[in-house]
C-alpha cells in the first residue's frame, strides 16, 4: 500500500479540503494525475488540504467498495457533497470547476 499524506497547516477559516486519489501503480495516467493534482492543490489550496493516494493494484477490494470503474479517480471527500473526477486531471479548468475552486 502506497500512502502519502501531505498535511497543510490549519490556519484558514476556509473549509478544509480532503481528497482521495485512486491510481494504478505508476502508469502514465496515474503519474500525470498525481502531478496535476498536486500542482492544482498547491496553487489554490496551499496548506488547507489533505490528500490520500491509494494504489488500487495494492488494494483491489477497495475498487468494489468505492464503486471504482475508471481510473485515475479523484474523490473530494470534504467538503460535502462528495465529488468524483476521473481522468488524469489534465484539463485544469474542468478540475477547478468540479472542485469548486473557480471563484
Amino acid at each position, binding site marked *: 500500500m502506497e500512502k502519502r499524506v501531505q498535511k497543510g497547516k490549519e490556519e484558514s477559516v476556509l473549509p478544509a479540503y480532503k481528497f482521495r486519489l485512486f491510481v*494504478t501503480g505508476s502508469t502514465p495516467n496515474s503519474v*500525470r*494525475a498525481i502531478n496535476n493534482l498536486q500542482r492544482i492543490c498547491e496553487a489554490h489550496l496551499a496548506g488547507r488540504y489533505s490528500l490520500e493516494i491509494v494504489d488500487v493494484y495494492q488494494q*483491489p477490494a477497495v*475498487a468494489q467498495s468505492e464503486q471504482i470503474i*475508471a*481510473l485515475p479517480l479523484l474523490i473530494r471527500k470534504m467538503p460535502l457533497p462528495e465529488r468524483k473526477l476521473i481522468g488524469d486531471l489534465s*484539463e485544469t479548468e474542468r*478540475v477547478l470547476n468540479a472542485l469548486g475552486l473557480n471563484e
Partner: protein
Amino acid sequence: MSRSARKSNLQPLEKKPTGISGFDEITGGGLPAGRPSLICGEAGAGKTLFSIEFIVRGAIEFKEPGVIVIFEEQAADLEKNVASLGFDLKKLQKDNMLWIDHVHIDRSEIEETGEYDLDGLFIRIGHAIDSIGAKRVMLDTIENLFGGLSNEGILRAELRRLFGWLKNKGVTTIITGERGQGTFTRQGLEEYVSDCVILLEHRVTNQISTRLLRVVKYRGSLHGTNEYPFLIDEEGISVLPVTSLGLDNAVSSQRISTGILSLDSMFSGNGLFRGSSCLVSGTAGTGKTSIAAYFAEASCNRRERCLYFAFEESPKQIVRNMGSIGIDLKRHMDAGLLEIHSLRPTLHGLEMHLVAIHRAVKKFKPRMVIVDPITNLVTIGSMSEVKSMLIRLIDFLQGEGITVLFTALVYDKDATVQTDEGISSLVDTWLLVRDIEANGERNRGIYIMKSRGTKHSNQVREFVINDTGLELVDVYLGPDGILIGSAREAQQLSEVTGLELRHYAKSRKDREVERKRMVLESKIATLKEEFESVRDELNKTFVEEDLKNEIMEKNRDELTKTRNTRNSSHGKRK
C-alpha cells in the same frame, strides 16, 4: 471459416454446459469454454435470466464458481428476482461459489478531466475472479457504461481490451447487450465478442407470445441455426430444441396391443411397435376418443402408466363417456396407472403446452401418451407452428421410448390424404376412421392408411360401437359390392332366411323319402306274410301227405304184424 474448420478438425472446441435445459443440446455442449459469449435481445427477452442461470447452475450443478457483475439492477433486487426460481444467491455467496458486484455509474456524479482507462473495472473483476477462483463471469449489461462515461473512444478500446483480458484469464464469460436498431446490440458489442452470439427474441402473434432463441454465431462449432422457442417459468429457462439434431432414437421391436383385438389382427395380430407414434384421424363422431380410451386401457392392463392429455373433455366426462362402452377408466386412475390432464388449448401458448407435456411426462414417467385431439391446438397457433411443436413432441417421446397416440379431427370428409396438421408424415401408424354414408345411414369404417414396418391389412373394416365396446366387423362382400351397416345386416338376414328355407325343403324331401321307404317296407312285409301263408299251405299239404303216408305205413305194419301173429298162434297151438 477455414480457421474454424481447421480448429474443429484438430481439436474440438471445449464447451461449458449452461445447465439450461435444451440449450446445451442445440449448441452441442454449451458455451465456448474460456471465451466471451454475447447474449443479445430486447428488453424483457430474458437475457439476464439466461446469464444468471448460466452462473448459478454452473455453481450448483458443475461446481464452478461464478462472478456476477451487474450494471443495472441492485444486487438485492437481483436476489429477490431469482429467489422465485429457487436460487439462493446468499447461500452461494457464503459458500464462496458466487460473487456479486454491482457496478453503479452515474454520469451526473462524475466529471471527466482527461485521459482515463477502465483499470478500476479490470481490477474489480480480477479481484472477484481471484477471490473465489471463478470459472464463469457474467457482465449484465456492460453497455450501460456508455451511459455513464462520455468518451466513447476510450470505452470502445477498453471494452475490446476487457474481453481480450477475460479470454486470457480463461474464464467463460457471458456479456448481455440490448438489441439495437439494425444491429445486435446498441453499441455494436458483437464486433468485440466474436466467438458466440446468441439472440433472444420475444414475438407476439395473435396475442400469444412466444420467446425465441437463435444461435447467430458460434465460431468453431456446429450449432443449430433455427429459432428455438423457449420458456421462462418457475424452473427457469427451457429451450425446446427438436430434441436432437439427428434422428438417432433407439427403437424397439416389441409389439403392444391396441386393446382392440380385431384391430390388432389388422396388424397381423400383433398390434403396434412400442415407442411408435400413431395417429387416429377422422371426422366428428367417428369414435376417435373411444379408440384412444381403448389404447389407454390396454396400457393400464399391462400395468404400464398412461398419460392422457384431453383438450376437449374433462377427466370426469371421459370416465363417464367411456363407461358407456364398457371401459372402466376410473379403476386405473385410482390405481395410479392413468392420469388425465384436461387443458383448454387457449389456456396458454403452444410452447407452454409442449413444456406442460414435457413436465408431466418427466414426472409421471408413462409408457403411453395420448393427445386428444391435436386439432384443437390450431386455435392457438398456425399450422406450421403446430407441426413444429408436434415434431418436437414426437421426437421427445420417441427418445424416451414412449408410445404416443394422437387423435385428429378432419373437417372435410374428403380430406383423407392429408391431415390438417400435416403430421401424417411424422407418425409411424395412421388409422383413418371415417363415415361411410349409404342407404340413408352413417356407418363407421376404419382402415390403416400406413403403418411403418408392420404388415397390415389393406381392408376397410366396419367399426361398431355398442354397449360392450368397440368391435371391428369384416365388411360384407356381397355380389353387389361392399355392404355395411343395415345393408350388411339385411344381407346377412336374407342369407339366413335362404338357409332356413333350404333346410326346410331338404327336411321335407327327407320325410317324403322316409315315407316312401316306410310304404315300401310295409308292402314288403305284406308280401312276406303272404309268402308265409302260401308256404304254410304248401307245407300243410306236404305234412298231411307225410302224416297220411306215415300212418298208412304204420297201419300196414300193424296189419302185417297182426296177420303174422295169428299165424304163429295157430302154429303154437299145434
